[in-house]
């Protein structure tokens, strides 16, 4: 057994799979464009301009990736325990409402304190909402995929009901406006980017990312969570309380999602309105986590990719008439190719062999 130098192949595979998936996803989108009678070259030029074209576009890209970092982290963290938290969407929505209410109440508090309270409220709401499937799974073995999917719809109806009946102001079906003391707008940056809605939420998201990575890899809690996720039988054998960890992982996951919801209200919308549909960022979080290989730093990359595609698509539609929905095709393609990782790996290997 002769030792060789540390492997660069693993790194190549980690980065190589998403990279190839992105290319393949764009190819699929191009085919769809041609098929619908548009020019892919023009379409993608518009897309690119919509992402990096000017400071406004780039600001909006940051804005739209921000909530995806939270939801991506939430999905990834739960996944490390072997839980598939499809309920990030609902936890996010509950977090939005809690953030909106606390953000509107208590005006006049010092900014930092008010912001922390409002985000904390969002986290708490998300955690409570996630506790339901967590306990059902931990205590009774009810599969979390079923419960979290169902709770997503419950959350939408619940939040709308609460706003309509208890929290609306005047004739509008929305909560009161968030007080200036809880506003996350970065005024200077807003001017700099020609009115893009970049806000402090992105920095808070990065803090969350580092915190989640720290918990996972540097703490006993993270050790337990990962052990349970990889092999619950061995975790149990080692004296780790599997049930406790399942519930705890769900709570943390829900808290991150809920915090993301609050941040979105404080930074972008300024209040929470009744909505006929779920915002969708929770669902996108699943794909973001997938692309990021459930790694916190991978999530950042995945969120950027998704945020960029979504913002760029608006510009693309505006400039080139290529419909926004095409980007959904691209995204679906990317997710598909990442999910069928084995297939992509196989393609990579074929390429190596030819080389």
């Amino acid at each position, binding site marked *: 057994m002769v030792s060789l130098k540390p492997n660069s192949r693993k790194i190549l595979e980690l980065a190589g799979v998403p990279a190839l998936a992105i290319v393949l996803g764009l190819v699929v989108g191009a085919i769809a464009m041609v098929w619908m009678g548009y020019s892919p070259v023009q379409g993608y030029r518009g897309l690119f301009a919509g992402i990096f074209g000017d400071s406004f576009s780039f600001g909006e890209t940051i804005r739209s990736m921000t909530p995806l970092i939270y939801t991506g982290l939430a999905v990834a963290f739960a996944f490390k325990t072997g839980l598939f938290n499809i309920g990030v969407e609902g936890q996010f929505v509950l977090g939005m409402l809690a953030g909106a209410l606390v953000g509107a109440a208590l005006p006049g508090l010092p900014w930092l304190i008010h912001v922390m309270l409002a985000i904390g409220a969002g986290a708490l709401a998300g955690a409570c909402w996630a506790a339901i499937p967590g306990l059902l799974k931990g205590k009774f073995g009810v599969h979390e995929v079923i419960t979290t999917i169902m709770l997503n719809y419950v959350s939408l109806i619940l939040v709308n009901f609460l706003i309509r009946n208890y929290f609306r102001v005047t004739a509008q079906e929305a909560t009161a406006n968030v007080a200036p003391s809880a506003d996350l707008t970065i005024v200077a940056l807003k001017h700099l980017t020609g009115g893009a809605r970049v806000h402090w939420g992105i920095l808070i998201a990065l803090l969350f990312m580092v915190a989640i990575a720290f918990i996972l890899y540097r703490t006993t809690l993270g*050790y337990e969570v990962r052990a349970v996720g990889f092999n619950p039988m*061995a975790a149990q054998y080692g004296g780790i309380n599997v049930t406790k960890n399942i519930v705890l992982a769900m709570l943390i996951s829900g808290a991150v999602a809920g915090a993301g919801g609050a941040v979105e209200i404080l930074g972008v919308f300024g209040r929470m309105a009744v909505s006929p549909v779920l915002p969708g960022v929770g669902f996108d979080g699943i794909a973001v986590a997938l692309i990021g290989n459930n790694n916190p730093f991978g999530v950042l990359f995945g969120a950027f990719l998704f945020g960029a595609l979504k913002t760029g698509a608006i510009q693309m539609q505006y400039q080139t008439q290529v419909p926004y929905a095409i980007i959904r095709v691209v995204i679906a393609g990317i997710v598909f190719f990442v999910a069928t990782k084995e297939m992509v790996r196989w393609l990579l290997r074929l390429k190596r062999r030819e080389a």
Partner: protein
Amino acid sequence: MEPVIEMRSISKVFPRVVANDKINISVAPGEIHALLGENGAGKSTLMNVLYGLYQPTEGDIYIHGKKAEITNPNAAIAMGIGMVHQHFMLIPPMTVAENIVLGHEPRKFGFLDLSRAVERVEEISRRYGLQVDPRAKVENISVGMQQRTEILKALYRGAEILILDEPTAVLTPQEITELFEIMRNLIKEGKSIIFITHKLKEIMAVSDRVTVIRRGRVVDTVRTRDTNPQDLAAKMVGRQVSLQINKQIGVPGEKIMELIDLYALSNRKLPALRGVSLEIRRGEIVGLAGVDGNGQSELVEVIAGLRKAQSGKVMMLGRDITNYTPRKVISCGISHIPEDRQARGLVLDFNIEENMILETYYQDGFANGLILNHKQIEQHARRLIREFDIRPTDEKAFARSLSGGNQQKVIIAREVDGDPELLIAAQPTRGLDVGAIEFVHKRIVGQRDRGKAVLLVSLDLDEIMALSDRIAVIYEGRIVGAVSASEATEEMLGLMMAGAAG
């Protein structure tokens, strides 16, 4: 005669290890060819190359003299190669029959014809004398039956060349004799077998030729009748190995553990323990003998807190610890080498250092409050890797990438290192090479000599007889007798294991 298989100058390089280094090996028709080598020598890797699971870094494979491109297991199966892996590759929630026919299912109107599958399985299982329950789910059957299922799976696919990677490690002596019978029958039908084992006795008993591998290279290929166990052991390890256990007569002291009338259910909710009573003293190794599936696994799990006792008591140093959580059991000074290293003993996706702290990660030294102390964890692993000769010596290597024997060594290092009051060792040397077995046996006897207690559960009667001070026999969930090891004979234990009162 033209060889059925010829592997020429095969090398396989993993990112950090050269597992096979220009290996030449050939198998004649109708031959049982044994592969012998230390843990991590590269035996499984070489066989995985032959079975199409790995592509060799260099070298060619010839089957019946023709160069073969074995790019995947299906290609191997099509060429008549069947493999029974060292670690089972069964799907736990599916039945035995479903697992066996998987990929080659009998169909009716395009759908799986389950009753035919069961029939076919019963038919071949009768023909080769390998007993399984075709309708049982794999997750509910014993390790021994899982192994038999694996063998049937290969036979079902019409293997002409059968690779058996440590098939006997999990079988009872009786089953091993039966397996040898089957192997000899297969040879008579002109099939060829590559047989991996660490047990020299088995090699002497059944093989025609032996190839010895050390650190990825072929040391020698010899005819079995021209060699002997001492010789083989020396070739393989590169030094003389003591095949005998040297131990003084033990001096049992106070009672450490007492089991009183324990009852418990199996995974299938059938009675598994039906009134087990047993005591273990300081300075004593108690061997628990029995045919696989008579309640050994359940007994160990009940003591370890991994399975609920319905009634009865587990007393540790006078304290009632029945149905304690695993963590509390561990903190009472009980350590446990589990019988199934991959299902229970290791987190395969953790690296060695993470696996070394599976029970202790939260304790002072490894963690300051909630924060893990990576430096300590790393040093701890390095020390154990050195002390227990785990290869490769890289504490960041994933458990999954280790050879079977080295995975076992990681567990043993972890469990013995805490110097437990009571060490429960279930099949502790399963899959270890003779050198490593010698080492583990020394450690187990060492525990005893330091006044600690050991409960040794093993299907290997030789091991039980060689190590134990007292031997208890379990049959259908009861201890049917306990004898002092000096008085025990193989015949007597055999009778007791078959249910005749001792």
